[in-house]
């Protein structure tokens, strides 16, 4: 029932949830569905051993005779599982020779309460025989968890594809391609970068490279994993930049302290795009990140028009226009600020602090993904377009099991990575966010 040993960093501690992989355009939905069903099946519980164990304890008290059985669920078990346990317990008791009667017909009554504590389900049977004090027997069953999804109807569908989950913090994930086919992922954690290859239906660890950093990371530490045009990987962390020498294992990592600016526009967006005229207007913007905080200092390179600095910000997104680019910054003071290089204005948008741009073949072709500023217990992301002036919501909100801790556009620019910290389990879960049209 209890874990006696904890060794951080051992791969078994990674709780790999599921693996749905590949860019939406290439990946068949059926394959995704199979993987999601497979992952859901992991949560299906088998209660039979515990039912047998409790039945045996009950019969040891009642003997082989007749009794009534009442089952009450006061645990977090759903009705379905509760019914399964109740039926299984009835069968087990009858197989062991206990004849179950209605309560008015039996002199022995068995009341089973499905209860729980922090770590286990506790099933308690109170057995009343004649006027004697009730006997109490019980079993405990380790607890597990589950998940759910919901959608509402909107012109564009924002889809959340699970990529990876682990107990330790995830700062970013890069999906790596080989000959144009995604087959590996690189996970940027707080202390290392790990690569995994999808083989024989599961993720297998290839290599884990430790990140050396002279100072402790700031709280709410952030990081970004960037693939260059040559497929090399660079990890940007607060006050540290790490370069990985080769994308396929074995590779090595070189980290050095420094204030190298972080890229704000993925390289994939500055080259080919759906609208060459628009993409040509997007410069390769970089921003300086505060090494002991969780925000960009506001110093930009090159300048956006007349603005070489903006108020310190958490994330930035943009929408290309015909002759300029509209930039938006989720500022550290909570406001969202817009600039076109000439003017700057603070908006009243109720967005959260994470925004990212994606370029798709849907709608206006460019969408901004933004977290909400609402319920801190359950975060969500929506897609927006800027057809004229105000943002228009173009997708339903996709909910996350806890606060979104990172939202970065992927290298190709057509999808984004969202990391959320699960409120219930405390683990970090990484998702690819992709948009599909014509719903």
């Amino acid at each position, binding site marked *: 029932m209890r874990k006696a040993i904890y060794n951080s960093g051992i791969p078994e501690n990674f709780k790999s949830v599921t693996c749905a992989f590949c860019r939406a355009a290439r990946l068949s939905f059926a394959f995704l569905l199979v993987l999601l069903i497979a992952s859901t099946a992991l949560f299906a519980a088998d209660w039979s051993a515990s039912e047998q164990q409790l039945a045996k304890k009950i019969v040891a008290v009642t003997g082989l005779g007749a009794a009534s059985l009442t089952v009450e669920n006061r645990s977090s078990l759903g009705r379905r599982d509760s019914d399964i346990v109740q039926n299984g317990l009835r069968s087990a008791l009858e197989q062991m020779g206990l004849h179950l009667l209605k309560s008015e017909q039996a002199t022995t009554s068995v009341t089973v309460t499905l209860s729980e504590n922090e770590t286990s389900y506790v099933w308690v049977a109170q057995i009343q025989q004649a006027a004697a004090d009730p006997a109490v027997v*019980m079993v405990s069953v380790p607890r597990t968890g589950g998940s759910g999804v919901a959608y509402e109807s909107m012109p564009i569908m924002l889809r959340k594809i699970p990529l990876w989950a682990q107990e330790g913090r995830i700062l970013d994930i890069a999906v790596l391609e080989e000959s144009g086919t995604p087959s590996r992922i690189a996970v940027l954690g707080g202390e290392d970068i790990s690569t995994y290859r999808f083989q024989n239906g599961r993720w297998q660890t290839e290599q884990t490279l430790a990140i050396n950093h002279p100072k402790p990371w700031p709280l*709410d530490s952030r990081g970004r994993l960037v693939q260059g045009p040559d497929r090399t990987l660079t990890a940007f962390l607060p006050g540290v930049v790490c370069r990985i020498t080769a994308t396929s294992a074995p590779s090595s990592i070189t980290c050095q302290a420094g204030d190298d600016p972080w890229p704000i526009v993925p390289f994939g967006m500055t080259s080919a795009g759906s609208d060459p005229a628009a993409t040509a207007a997007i410069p390769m913007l970089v921003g300086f990140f505060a090494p002991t905080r969780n925000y960009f200092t506001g110093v930009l390179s090159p300048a956006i028009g007349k603005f070489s600095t903006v108020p310190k910000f958490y994330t930035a997104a943009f929408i290309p226009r015909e002759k300029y680019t509209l930039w938006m910054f989720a500022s550290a*003071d909570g406001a969202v600020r817009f600039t076109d290089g000439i003017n700057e204005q603070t908006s*009243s948008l109720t967005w959260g602090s994470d925004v990212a741009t994606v370029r798709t073949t849907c709608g206006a072709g460019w969408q901004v993904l933004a977290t909400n500023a609402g319920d801190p217990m359950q975060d969500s992301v929506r897609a927006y377009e800027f057809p004229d002036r105000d943002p228009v919501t173009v997708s339903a909100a996709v909910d996350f099991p806890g606060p979104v801790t990172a939202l970065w556009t992927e290298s190709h620019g057509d999808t984004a990575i969202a990391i959320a910290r699960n409120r219930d*389990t405390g683990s970090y879960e990484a998702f690819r966010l992709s948009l599909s049209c014509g719903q």
Partner: protein
Amino acid sequence: MKRFVFHCLAVSSLTLATLAHAETRPEYGGTLRLTMHAVPSTLDPADSRVPDSFARRSLTSLIFDTLVVVDDAGRTKPGLAESWQAAKGNQRWQFRLRHGVRFHDGTPLTGEIVAASLRFANPGWSVRGDADSVTIDSEASQPELPVEVALPRNAIAKRDGQEKLSGTGPFRILDWQPGKKLTLAAEEDCWRGRPFLDGIEVEMGRSFHDQATALEVGRADLIEVAPEQSHHFSPAKGRLASSQPVELIVLVFARDSSSPDDKLLRSALGLSVERGSIQSVLLQGAGQAAGGLLPTWISGYGFVFSSQADLQKARQLRDQVQTARLWTLGYDGSDPLARVLVERIALNAKDARLSLVPTAVGLTDLRLLRIPLACADPWIALENVAAQTDLPRAQNKWSSAEELFSAEKAALATDRVIPLFHLPVFYAATSSLKNWTLRNNGSLELSNAWLGAAK
């Protein structure tokens, strides 16, 4: 050239007066003002002269760290220890220390300092340390030792002299006026990362009423709320949060029952207490009536112990005894809730023809105690209650739920204690304080809290 007309942003959707703010990404800066009712005279987590309290646990976690932490799901996680391993049938535990950790005074964390800290907190433990690990030996198997070292009293402190304490936690002590005021500053090089808050100011010895007023007029950001007053807290004043029921209210007899008659009278008293009506009226619905020592969320079976009053049976038991002597019932005179509870219990007892005289002074026959449960681990929580009430200790520790139930049942069968209620702790904060939570031991978790704009 005017590329973009910003009037566009100042139109339909504008509700300019209520500028919305992002919530998900924490902001750095600001000083949190916290008030509390307790008046701790020391910050030393292991000073056994000061009773355990939720306030003390909260302060400890701001300044100090433990080797291991237990999360809200009851799982052990690395704290100052990166890993740990058992040997010799759980009689020896070795904890490997995290590298690069320093105390607030700049001293590096070593096994020797950790060992000295643990020995101070647990004089009976055999602890030895070297440069980067610490080993604890015991004569009996201790499968739950990692959970035990996660208790606040086992937080690692470097003690230089009588008053000089240094920790490794997210905040360092700037100013300490025992029982009055504590000023903490963010530890810039904290191994867990610099906290978002720049500092915390703690005012102690404030009545619950004063605290509520301070929150209302903006002189405090985070306050305690008395359980019986939680019902009246208005959401307009801020956010109210409560823990699981982590406090046991219990009547404890000073001595074991001296005769069969005494045993009958104690049972009669237990049956006379109208826990249900006290919970609805005096506690205003807060907490749960308790028939057992551990609440169900910790044990899983707490509901098995009846908390129902049975006045008829109480009178029957009372009438089997010729003469019932008068009992004195002690309570903490500075605790208004304790006073109203003992007064009501005395009235209930009177209905069962028992004589109870409440008093806040002197030695008494029985006493109303409020015991903060040690943690969510049922064995450690039960052991802790047993230690504070002089109940017999469990023999077959760390085994099944059924063994735990037997141990608790045996403790109750001594008639030394009459469990009354399990109460949660309540805190309230302004809406500008974000990401503050309550741990399942009732203490505040503020290491990731931050101050943003009020909503």
